[in-house]
């Protein structure tokens, strides 16, 4: 596999500096083609959109759009618990929430923006999604109530559990494997 990757890497490197690429049956994709289908944003802030929000603005949006399924910090809902659970990871009572488990704040914004509310994804503005993200971070004691969340501040937030993830590709490291 390594040799093949190396070979393709060399070929790709050659192609990268050579003349324009050709596709036998594909059509060149425009920026509009890409933008319509590409919703990923990255931990370093790449591809985060314009807009901004705060927890104060996000709280009523969350209560109106999200709380029915996800509950509130005071009361759990039927779907994924988003608050609390701090210090439970690694115990028999592990409760993985945004605050106790998620390693990147950018993931919260990215997922909520493209996938929520469940029955009407992508139905709000970027600033509304930034505000809901801010509320989720505030309610997990990660940011302040009036902290402004946008494409510059969001990637700088340090999540409490960020340091506890171990890269397991291409191999689960010892001692978490049962065999050398």
């Amino acid at each position, binding site marked *: *596999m*390594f040799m*093949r*990757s190396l070979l*393709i890497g060399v070929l*790709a*490197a050659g*192609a*990268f500096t050579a003349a*324009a*690429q050709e*596709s*036998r*049956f*594909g*059509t*060149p*994709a425009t920026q509009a*083609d*890409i933008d319509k*289908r*590409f*919703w*990923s*944003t*990255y*931990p370093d802030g790449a591809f985060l959109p314009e807009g901004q929000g705060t927890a104060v603005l996000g709280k009523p949006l969350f209560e109106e759009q999200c709380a029915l*399924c996800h509950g509130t910090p005071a009361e759990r809902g*039927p*779907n994924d618990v988003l608050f609390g659970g701090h210090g439970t*990871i*690694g*115990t*028999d009572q*592990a409760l*993985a929430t*945004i605050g106790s488990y998620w*390693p*990147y704040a*950018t*993931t919260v914004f*990215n*997922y909520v923006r*493209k*996938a929520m509310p*469940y*029955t009407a*994804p992508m139905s709000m503005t970027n600033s509304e999604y930034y505000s809901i993200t801010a509320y989720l971070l505030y309610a997990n004691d990660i940011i302040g109530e009036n902290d402004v969340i946008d494409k510059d501040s969001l990637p700088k937030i340090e999540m409490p559990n960020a340091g*506890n*993830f*171990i*890269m*397991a*590709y*291409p191999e*689960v490291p010892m001692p*978490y*494997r*049962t*065999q050398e």
Partner: protein
Amino acid sequence: MTDSKKTLVVDPLDLAAGNGLMNRRLFLNSALVGGATLATGGSAFAQEAIVGEGQEEWTLMPGDDLPEYGDVSRYEKGRVKRFVSEPVGLATAALGARTPLHMLHGTITPSGLHFEVTHHGIPDIDPDRHQLVIHGMVKQPFKWGVEQLENYPTVSRQYFLECSGNTRVNWAEPKPDQNFMYMTHGLVSGSEWTGVPLSTLLDECGVSPDAKWVIAEGGDSGSLARSIPIDKALDDTMVAIYQNGERLRPSQGYPMRILAPGFEGNISVKWVRSLHVTDQPVMSRFETSKYTDKLHDGKSLQFSLEMDVKSVITRPSNAVSLEKKGMYEITGLAWSGRGKVAKVEVSADGGRTWADAVLEPPIQSKMLTRFRIPWMWEGRPSILQSRATDEFGRVQPSRAALMAARGKQAYYHYHAIHSWSVNARGAIRHVYA
């Protein structure tokens, strides 16, 4: 004919609608029998029974017309089926449909019984309005619809798909789950997948030598995204458009999906519409919050992508009882996300002694392999187990060894030896042994 006095018995399966409307072929059958009675009644042959006396009715009449799309027997329908979980909260879709491995044989799972996990329901995609774009660290971004993909040379390969949540109940449950096998092992299936090698499309775009990951996104209502390592993307990953010879089912990613052989199922993104070539993983919800394995020390494994070597006895299982002493076949499935299954051992005494099972060819890389071994049950309490080894010498661990390495909260990637206990009456239960 003595038959003319026979009491009419209505088989509920013959009912076609309410208030006694019956399947029309029963009428054809009655007419046929009536006609035969008329023809023989009072003739010189009256004392002789027709030759078909005692035959079943389906032998005495022509069968149904040929359907344009075949289906299973009506006697199988509703019996051989997946276990579908209930939607939770306001979710409109069930999370999972589990394959009834204990009811199936061979290694190919019928498409309609292939397991399915969906996080945002099954989209109803018009193939004429669905396109895949490859972009990012490439010389030239391109897009393709399914009809354009059809023009490329395709490959057809048999691969298993397994959700990394398969057998998760065995991690934490204090008592062994006694539901049938769909609850413990029904999130693995095998199919023949046909598609275009992803490397073909990436090569056309001209991938940067600095690229390290390809981020796949689906067109479902969650735009589900996963990060594929570039070496896997250029190796055996395909953009699949057919399953078991026909276009993908909607629930399997119609009209196109990623198929990353041997990797946890979630990374084979269904309904794929964007492939972003980049130098970092996207850290999507499904590779951070979900599909990461919580360890006993508070750490979590992330990107544990290759499915471990694993096996399970599918028959006998807790869905059957042994009726009497005697010879039985023990059979089951084994697989490894790294390559081929090299060996499956079976124990009938709770792991004290093991015997090599016969592996049924073809033994294919990253595909289910069926094993078989005869077993004489002498009426004694027994514990049946199977233990697979792959071509790289990886051995399926005991439950105790896996627990010692990872704890009880890992949730994903449970792959330990599964145990069936048989009691003196032949009843079978799932046990931890």
